[in-house]
């Protein structure tokens, strides 16, 4: 597919990939600083299945709250607007692109396992780097590869060509995407996230997780997800769609600069947290 077709192809994605109404409403409401908790709760409560999912996620071992959260209002008070919005996003996007039980060329179960592990690892790295709201980092990691699942869903035949090329040549999925499509999942993910009016930080992290310095003021945040992706591949957490690992960007590594023992300790922590979060998404 020629690069000149990129704009046309991506405009097609914008028309096809639309967020569920409730998720869209929650984003609009939480983007407005004048909104109240009541408005957010009301919007979520329109969807009973989503409400129950959000409560299940908020009560998962990943958060480890001692008291059971029984209402959306309570969840908003405990977790805050931004985190509730992130849970709605996580649940809605997972439901849009969940594994369907059929054997697929692109391993969706492995994809979501990798995404969840990246979310958890991003949170651990954000904590190490003193980022204020480490829960935000979770959604960056969870959704960083949004473009892959969008491509698999809406451009299935072209994306199947990408996966076949990865298998034939044993190359990085991103290199195969460039060869087959002329653009990569980061570009697609960034465009879709922009169309969905997701927070600017999240859009930048999705768009530049392979090239953190290009994220400008969000460089540190993109670097966190970039490193999380590589750490998860190093210990085989989930499946990013290939059997290769990309190089760590030097400017990202400078932020952490870990020695071997610290990396091993991080690997242990990652795996323990992944086990704890098993109930977070019904993968």
């Amino acid at each position, binding site marked *: 597919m020629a690069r000149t077709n990129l704009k046309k192809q991506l405009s097609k994605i914008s028309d096809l990939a639309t967020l569920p109404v409730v998720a869209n409403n929650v984003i609009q409401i939480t983007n407005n600083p004048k909104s109240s908790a009541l408005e957010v709760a009301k919007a979520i409560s329109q969807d009973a299945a989503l409400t129950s999912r959000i409560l299940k996620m908020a009560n998962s071992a990943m958060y480890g709250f001692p008291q059971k959260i029984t209402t959306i209002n309570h969840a908003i008070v405990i977790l805050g607007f931004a985190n509730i919005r992130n849970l709605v996003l996580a649940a809605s996007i997972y439901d849009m692109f969940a594994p369907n039980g059929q054997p697929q060329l692109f391993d969706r179960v492995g994809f979501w396992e990798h995404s969840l592990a990246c979310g958890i690892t991003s949170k651990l790295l954000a904590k190490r780097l003193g980022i204020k709201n480490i829960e935000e980092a979770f959604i960056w990691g969870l959704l960083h590869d949004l473009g892959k699942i969008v491509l698999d869903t809406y451009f299935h035949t072209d994306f199947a060509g990408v996966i076949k090329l990865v298998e034939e040549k044993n190359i990085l999925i991103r290199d195969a995407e460039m060869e087959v499509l002329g653009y990569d999942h980061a570009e697609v993910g960034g465009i879709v996230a922009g169309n969905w009016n997701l927070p600017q930080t999240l859009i930048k992290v999705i768009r530049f997780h392979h090239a953190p310095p290009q994220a400008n003021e969000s460089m540190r945040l993109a670097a966190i997800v970039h490193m999380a992706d590589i750490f998860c*591949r*190093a*210990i085989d957490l989930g499946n990013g769609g290939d*059997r290769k*690992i990309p*190089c*760590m960007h030097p400017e990202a590594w400078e932020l952490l600069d870990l020695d*071997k023992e610290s990396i*091993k300790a991080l*690997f242990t922590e990652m795996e323990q947290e992944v086990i704890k979060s098993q109930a977070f998404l019904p993968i």
Partner: protein
Amino acid sequence: MNDKTSPASESTAESADTIIAGLEQIFSDVKDDAVMTLLLAAAKEYHLQKAESHGPDES
């Protein structure tokens, strides 16, 4: 010291060998990079220690 290798330790060594071979393959394109070499070394030790602590695969 017991220099005779037991079937259990043979199985553990075999599974660790498989993991290391897989890692070598995953990292094969980035071997010239110092950070990735460090990461590979850490990943190898992590997997080896994990395999040793879990014992042989009984499946």
